[in-house]
């Protein structure tokens, strides 16, 4: 993969990937590292494979594999502490341009609450929710990225939504 090609991917998918990294990791620093490592890995792999039409799914697979490998060697207690930090950081990152109307503030608060609830989910529920709703991957692509059967994806989405409905009942 040439640098120019990588630049195109960063331009096309950078925001999608970064949003995913912010929600799947537990600190801004981890999100930055995962984001950077994903594109560097894509660059490495780009010398060995041809990235076909579904580049976004491929990118998500790379990100998820890196996240899983990284998580296996991290102290779990550090990550639990990191959850609260990331919620505030996510809130700060939501863009605010110009004066906010009451409606905009309510929408912003709603986003903050929903994202906080999603971030609190365990990995097996959080990841399919992010891949399906944030990254707009099809169920088939989510299954391929997560390397589980489609039926498992459906079950996990259903259970995740059940938990979220209970935690966000004031918004529904």
């Amino acid at each position: 993969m040439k640098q120019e090609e990588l630049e195109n991917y960063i331009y096309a998918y950078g925001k999608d990937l970064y949003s995913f990294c912010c929600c799947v990791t537990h600190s801004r620093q981890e999100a930055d590292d995962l984001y950077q490592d994903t594109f560097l890995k894509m660059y490495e792999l780009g010398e060995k494979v041809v990235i076909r039409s579904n580049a976004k799914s491929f990118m998500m697979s790379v990100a998820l594999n890196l996240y899983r490998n990284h998580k296996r060697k991290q102290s779990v207690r550090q990550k639990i502490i990191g959850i609260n930090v990331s919620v505030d950081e996510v809130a700060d990152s939501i863009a605010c341009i110009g004066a906010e109307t009451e409606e905009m503030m309510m929408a912003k608060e709603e986003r903050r609450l929903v994202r906080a609830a999603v971030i609190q989910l365990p990995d097996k529920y959080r990841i399919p929710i992010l891949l399906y709703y944030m990254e707009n991957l099809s169920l088939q692509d989510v299954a391929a990225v997560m390397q589980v059967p489609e039926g498992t994806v459906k079950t996990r989405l259903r259970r995740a939504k059940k938990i979220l409905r209970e935690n966000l009942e004031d918004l529904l």
Partner: protein
Amino acid sequence: MKKDIDRLLKTALTPMDQPYEELNNRILLEVKERENMAGRKRRVRRRIPAAAIAAACILMLCSGTALAVYKYLTPAQVAEETEDGALQEAFSGNDAILVNETQESGGFRITLLGSVAGRNVSDYIPVDADTGEMEDNDKIYTIVAIERADGVQMPDTSTDAYGDTPFYVSHYIHGLDPNQYSIMSMGGNYTEFVKDGIMYRLLEMDNIEMFADRGIYVGVNSGSFYDSEAYNYDANTGEMSCNENYTGVNALFKLPVDTSKADPAAAEAYLKELQASWSMPEEPREMDAADLDAEEFMNRLTPENLDEYAEPIESTRQTCTAEKSSNGETLLRYSYELESGAGTSGTIVLEQLFPDGKSGVNIGSYSYNEKGLSSLLFDVFILNEDGTVTFVAYRPK
């Protein structure tokens, strides 16, 4: 106005986090440096020490087992690849079982490399999501290598072709129905990667060394689930064996676990707890009215009364695209999305839908939300006379 959870999630999770410019510049700078160093790096990678070449020649003349030792990563190296230092150490220790047995099956060569078990032998320690407490991590870890018998490299995990030929790998216990007792029901998961064209799967399950006196198997069959066609299970003797008429992969190994590790009392207690957990839902809750309505509806629905109680959503009607899998099954693909945002996509095996090959109707999976019957959607497949399959989503009338 009441909001739907799907709309809420789609709106709230719209990507909004913009990576800052310095982060992107850092990536591009790193790439540029790598490109500048590329020539020197390639030369280093291609250099193969003469001693290694000589050793390879010697080993090529040896038995298949020795070839396995040379050709494949060791279990410790597999653990190292997954960046699990504790597991790497465990596989290097005296408790590890190194097997290196190869079977050829369904066009693939399957090698059982080794196994190790114990409490906290992995760096990865699961945490209870509710309490934050570390869970008991008494597990067994087993590694198999899978490669094509014709020498074609297995597709890397990052390629589109990866996953086209899935494998179900699990431990089984002599005397327990493999359809019920396997990786899916016994605290299992797996990690997988491809290196030098060989797939390595590290599977993890509840530590079943307590069953050592009964006998433990490791099975590898084609597909994403246990395939009862792949193996014969004799409920009288408890013996598992390969079905010789099976056309896919159905390797079966005996894992030589030290019988001194058997603990019949612990084994019985484990089985009681496991079976008790099956009779409870994973998230125990009372069925509310919405659930009862939808479940009752689906329970009394048949292909014969389908049009009496339900109506097709014509916008979802489609002819499934069909393709053959590597083990000869016909895979049908379908997908739809309604204006409400509800929808699905999936792949299903024709031979499982219509085992006798006769034209007809099959009612598939269904979904509903807290609104119950009014939100119920279910899949219907119609095998036509010309062999095509029509998919239609239905809803109750």
